[in-house]
């Protein structure tokens, strides 16, 4: 059944965003034939625009759908999103300004650009670029899935709607580059904030307050009808903290997070955002509580949603707000998918252009205009690939790929972040560490009895039972040991420092007027 009034509001908001996407090309006009203009918005975004862009980019539509779905299905463990998105910012505060400054001084557009210069190794840069692209593809596909679950709730033909939405997104990203998601993020965030505030104020009053909501989830758990525990069982302590810590380390290694950061105007812009982005973590926590509300409201997961309980948020919103208000909220989620999808496709395209095409396919580089042209086409291909991915592959498989991508992207930490601080890293040790981390992480993911690429793994190390942990973090520890031990051996054997293509002064701000 098609819900007419919901659909009307939804389409109107979608059209508004489309117009903004195309007009963005004229905003803070720059020469869009340059990659730093198309792909990084000219590195001129101030604190407020960066806050909207990164908030819209990191807190994705899929997150908004999946986190409450996890809370609904499994309870307290799903709340690891809170510590994760709190402790990520102290890390960002320390690390990202330094990486930003080196990128600014040396004209880096991707994290792999930094790795290439730092280790003087196009090969290591290629590994980092491929890891980034592979981790990003399923993430884009899941954004489309986020749109899919809300469209399905409105009773519209899913395939055709998705194709239309994504062709439009692809076109304005092609034309406007990073300016499009930056401007759309203003609208997205306004819609999402309104949705969340209305939902967490209205739904509890209808369900008899938070006391009643948590009482009913506890009763349901007690009657074994639900696993939505309000408190974390002691068997999951280690899983909870390793998931939070590992995810926090991984987040700003994702190409879309680094692209959003590199587009900032100054180091101070990056620091201010590290201080104020947690506002979105608070919002994400409120969204997570929708999972408990759905338990209390006895919401049924719609059969059309696919991927387990992932349709629970649209179903709850439909149950509570049927009509134009639900249409508004569905549009908020769907538009919320467009911002990260655009930034992710730009980031993946830049990695391909800078670290694969320029380095290997057109040796010696090419004109900046040609680079931008290649990146624009690559962004189309990436989005098309993601669309085909979600329409042809089973959603649960795409989710497995995304979980695997999180494990893999974490293994790039030594090359991108540790390299900022430890001068004696050897590039081959970093390559070996990456291989060990990706290899172990993949092995654990594939052989996990809890499910393919499940987020927890019952770990034994040489007979010592560690417990249930996030396998990505465990693989990273192995990676780190190889990198440090290998580099120490390299320094001892060479009796000197390994190759380091970046001088200390390259990390310092340029002198005033210089």
């Amino acid at each position, binding site marked *: 059944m098609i819900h007419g009034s919901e659909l009307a509001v939804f389409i109107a908001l979608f059209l508004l965003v489309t117009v903004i996407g195309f007009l963005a090309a004229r905003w803070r006009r720059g020469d869009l034939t340059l990659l730093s203009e198309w792909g990084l918005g000219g590195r001129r975004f101030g604190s407020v625009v960066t806050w909207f862009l990164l908030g819209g980019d990191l807190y994705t539509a899929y997150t908004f759908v999946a986190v409450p779905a996890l809370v609904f299905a499994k309870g*307290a463990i799903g*709340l690891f999103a*809170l*510590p994760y998105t*709190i*402790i990520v*910012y*102290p890390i960002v*505060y*320390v690390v990202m*300004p330094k990486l930003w400054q080196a990128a600014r001084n040396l004209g880096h557009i991707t994290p792999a650009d930094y790795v290439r210069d730092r280790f003087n190794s196009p090969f290591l840069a290629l590994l980092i670029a491929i890891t980034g692209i592979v981790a990003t593809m399923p993430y884009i596909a899941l954004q489309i899935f986020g749109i899919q679950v809300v469209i399905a709730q409105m009773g519209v033909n899913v395939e055709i709607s998705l194709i239309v939405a994504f062709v439009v997104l692809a076109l304005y990203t092609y034309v406007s580059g990073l300016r499009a998601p930056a401007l759309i993020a203003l609208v997205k965030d306004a819609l999402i904030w309104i949705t969340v505030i209305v939902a967490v104020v209205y739904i509890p009053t209808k369900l008899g*307050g*938070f*006391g*009643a*909501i*948590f*009482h009913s989830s506890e009763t349901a758990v007690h009657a074994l009808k639900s696993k939505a525990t*309000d*408190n*974390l069982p*002691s068997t*999951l*302590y280690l899983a*909870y*903290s390793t998931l*939070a*810590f590992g995810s926090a380390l991984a987040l700003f290694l994702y190409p879309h997070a680094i692209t959003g950061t590199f587009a900032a105007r*100054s*180091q*101070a812009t990056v*620091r*201010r955002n*590290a*201080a*104020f982005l*947690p*506002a979105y*973590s*608070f919002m994400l*926590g409120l969204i997570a*509580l929708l999972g408990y509300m759905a338990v209390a409201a006895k919401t049924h997961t719609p059969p059309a949603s696919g991927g387990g309980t992932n349709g629970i948020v649209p179903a709850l919103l439909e149950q509570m707000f049927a009509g134009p208000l639900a249409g508004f909220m569905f549009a908020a989620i769907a538009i919320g998918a467009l911002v990260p999808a655009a930034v992710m496709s730009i980031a993946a395209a830049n990695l391909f252009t800078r670290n694969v095409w320029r380095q290997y396919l057109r040796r010696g580089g090419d004109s900046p205009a040609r680079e931008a042209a290649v990146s624009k086409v690559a962004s189309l291909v990436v989005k098309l690939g993601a669309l085909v991915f979600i329409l042809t592959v089973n959603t649960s498989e795409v989710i497995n790929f995304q979980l695997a991508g999180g494990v893999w992207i974490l293994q790039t930490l030594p090359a991108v972040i540790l390299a900022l601080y430890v001068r004696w890293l050897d590039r081959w040790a970093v390559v070996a560490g990456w291989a060990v981390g990706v290899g172990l992480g993949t092995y654990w993911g594939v052989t996990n009895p809890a499910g393919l690429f499940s987020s927890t793994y019952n770990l034994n190390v040489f007979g010592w039972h560690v417990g249930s942990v996030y396998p990505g973090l465990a693989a990273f520890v192995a990676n780190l040991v190889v990198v440090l031990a290998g580099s120490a051996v390299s320094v001892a054997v060479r009796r000197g420092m390994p190759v380091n293509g970046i001088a200390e002064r390259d990390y*310092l*701000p340029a002198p*005033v007027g210089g």
Partner: protein
Amino acid sequence: MDTTPEGGGRRRRRRWALVLLLIPFVALLYPPFYASLTPRFAGIPFFIWYQFLWVVIGVVVTGVVYALDRGDGDGR
């Protein structure tokens, strides 16, 4: 840049301030410390409201470190 005594002092203060950034890690990465249903706040279990509270404290901590950082040469 930091050759003046004043600049050196600021730099030391900034290094010291970065230690504050470790506070949220200590407060959140040891779940036995807060995995409890009580005391409740407005019907919300402790496990949940404690973490919401730390979002706010996290902002304050990073904000304080930023305030101590300002004027360190990159505030432009």
